């Protein structure tokens, strides 16, 4: 699938020439969803094929097929590369007549694809990306950012931990835009909560060995070591921190971006005691449990959904509700986004919420602590809830948003 897509992306010129507008006709009930994410790299476990399953579940749960709608879900691998992501997005919109680009993790790819969606009046329902720019300076009338962003992570973990006594911080920061943004946002949150950042070290992306950096963090005597990185980097840093006796030495580790798939990979013995912020956990309530069990049964490795995968489900469900109320597919991204913004969101996975004018979906976030093996009652029983962060605190307040759409 992915390869096919790439090959045809090469023939973009041809494709564009052929892409004569077919136009929507009245009563059109055909919809095409394209799940565009990392299918094989470091984000494949937190998004990847699981997001495609989530999208299919959203189609089924929407009940639209019974009402005569025909909904297709296709997927492709953007390999975390903006150029590849953009090519696929263009090809999907122009040739395959895809209505919604869903998931799109990796901030750089998401920002690029958001531009394509805007240019072609398509629709981006982003779940996987972290950058809060998507609803700030890079906001778009064709983009809704669903699950979380760097603001959520910084304020969830940064503020809560600082208030709980972790008032000195040392950062291990991945040396690229996302890491820097995360460090910056979290530092602001820590300062606001009365804490202090005593030091930071930038490490290259995809570092296998963190011992040097961890030794520096250890020597800083900071109470909290903040990990402003993601995926494999985070996992390695945590694993090695346990080895160097950092957690047993009294310093706390705070992972600013971490998913349940990472905790699963680490094992509780290593990950126990970690603090992290997520907007979804399978074991929050009956609604999340029911969804997650069904999801788990479909996964090849029986993994529970991550918040990104749950976000794909939830965002598409809301999209289908909007379609249902319109009664036909207008094939008009901006129109759909506008419609979605007028409707309150409500589903069993993320609960009740709203979508802000800048495209930011609001819902509560949760500060979790990872259980110890003794506390865990079984597979995937990983988190205990430390604090619930209300929706209005979990995301950038509207008056602080730099989104140009708001200035009109």
């Amino acid at each position, binding site marked *: 699938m992915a390869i096919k897509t790439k090959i045809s992306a090469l023939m973009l010129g041809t494709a564009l020439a052929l892409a004569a507008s077919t136009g929507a006709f009245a009563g059109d009930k055909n919809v095409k969803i394209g799940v565009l994410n990392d299918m094989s790299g470091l984000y494949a*476990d937190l998004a990847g094929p699981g997001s495609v399953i989530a999208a299919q579940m959203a189609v089924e749960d929407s009940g639209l097929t019974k009402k005569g709608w025909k909904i297709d879900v296709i997927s492709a691998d953007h390999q975390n590369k903006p150029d590849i992501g953009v090519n696929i997005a263009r090809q999907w919109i122009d040739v395959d007549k895809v209505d919604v680009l869903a998931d799109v993790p990796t901030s750089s790819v998401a920002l690029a694809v958001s531009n394509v969606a805007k240019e072609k009046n398509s629709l981006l329902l982003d779940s996987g990306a972290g950058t809060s720019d998507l609803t700030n300076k890079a906001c778009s009338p064709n983009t809704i950012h669903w699950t979380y962003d760097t603001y959520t992570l910084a304020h969830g973990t940064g503020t809560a931990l600082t208030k709980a006594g972790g008032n000195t911080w040392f950062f291990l920061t991945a040396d690229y835009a996302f890491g820097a943004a995360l460090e910056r946002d979290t530092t602001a949150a820590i300062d606001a909560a009365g804490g202090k950042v005593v030091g930071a070290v930038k490490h290259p992306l995809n570092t296998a060995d963190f*011992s040097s950096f961890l030794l520096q963090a250890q*020597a800083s005597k900071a109470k909290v070591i903040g990990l402003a990185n993601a995926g494999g980097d985070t996992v390695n840093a945590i694993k090695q921190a346990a080895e160097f006796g950092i957690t047993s030495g009294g310093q706390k580790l705070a992972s600013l971006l971490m998913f349940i798939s990472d905790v699963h990979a680490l094992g509780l013995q290593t990950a126990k005691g970690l603090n992290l912020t997520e907007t979804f956990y399978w074991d929050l309530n009956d609604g999340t449990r029911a969804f997650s069990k069904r999801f788990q049964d479909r996964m090849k490795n029986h993994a529970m959904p991550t918040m990104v995968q749950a976000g794909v489900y939830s965002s598409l469900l809301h999209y289908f509700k909007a379609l249902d109320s319109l009664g036909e597919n207008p094939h008009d991204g901006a129109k759909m986004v506008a419609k979605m913004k007028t409707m309150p969101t409500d589903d069993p996975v993320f609960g009740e919420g709203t979508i802000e004018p800048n495209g930011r979906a609001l819902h509560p976030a949760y500060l979790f602590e990872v259980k110890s093996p003794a506390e865990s009652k079984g597979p995937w029983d990983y988190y205990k809830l430390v604090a619930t962060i209300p929706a209005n605190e979990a995301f950038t307040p509207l008056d602080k948003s730099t989104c140009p759409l708001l200035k009109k």
Partner: protein
Amino acid sequence: MQALYAQLLVGLINGSFYALLSLGLAVIFGMLNIINFAHGALYMMGAFCAYFLLNIFGLNYWYALVLAPIAVGIFGMLLERTLLKWIAGLDHLYGLLLTFGIALIIQGVFQNYFGSSGLPYAIPPQLQGGMNLGFMFLPIYRGWVVVFSLVVCIATWYLIERTRLGAYLRAATENPNLVRAFGINVPRMITLTYGLGIGLAALAGVLSAPINQVRPLMGADLIIVVFAVVVIGGMGSIMGSVITGFALGVVEGLTKYFYPEASNTVVFVLMVLVLLVKPTGLTGRAT
């Protein structure tokens, strides 16, 4: 100053992996004249093998240390018998492409089955904890890695440079036809040598399993650095690759302390410098 000692020691730990891997590459290059791009994938298989032994057969780390290199070594020998032997004597490019393709296939298969974030492997109970050296907290397991790799490297060096079997190997590297005409089954020796090199990679994989995640791309990330180490040390030089492995680990460790942003590139910068001054590598013989 204390922090510096700590970084030096940490560098040695990474150097252990570089040394074990580049040693295997050097052995293979010497005998088969193949630049083995599959090395990283086979290193990864060593780590996975340890994981399987523990989780399927209940055999702990110590068994894995012996069994995983043997199992992966046998897999390597099958590769050599079925694929690599057909390109013997051809241009390096063929071996490079073939082994690179093998690496991609192996990694792809593992990724398909095990995802990308990896599986946990605990440090064996006997080696848990750490000791306070005054200037740093040294995890016992890391100390073990350094000592054990050093022993393995020296043993391998001894095997090749000081034993009769090693003499066969060195002679066959120079003139395989003549060595065979003396009554030595050179093709079998080539297969065993490849198995030995792969076994070393798998051993490094087992050693790294408790430190890093056991994940399909663990080798792909490491192997590029190791190739730089081999180039700096001199292709095919046994002692050169071991010493360069440890030394570059230390250099990298120091870089992480003084200028962490460059720690991923310092090895390649050194490689360029060495190639400019001495294209055969620091210990390489001109051929």
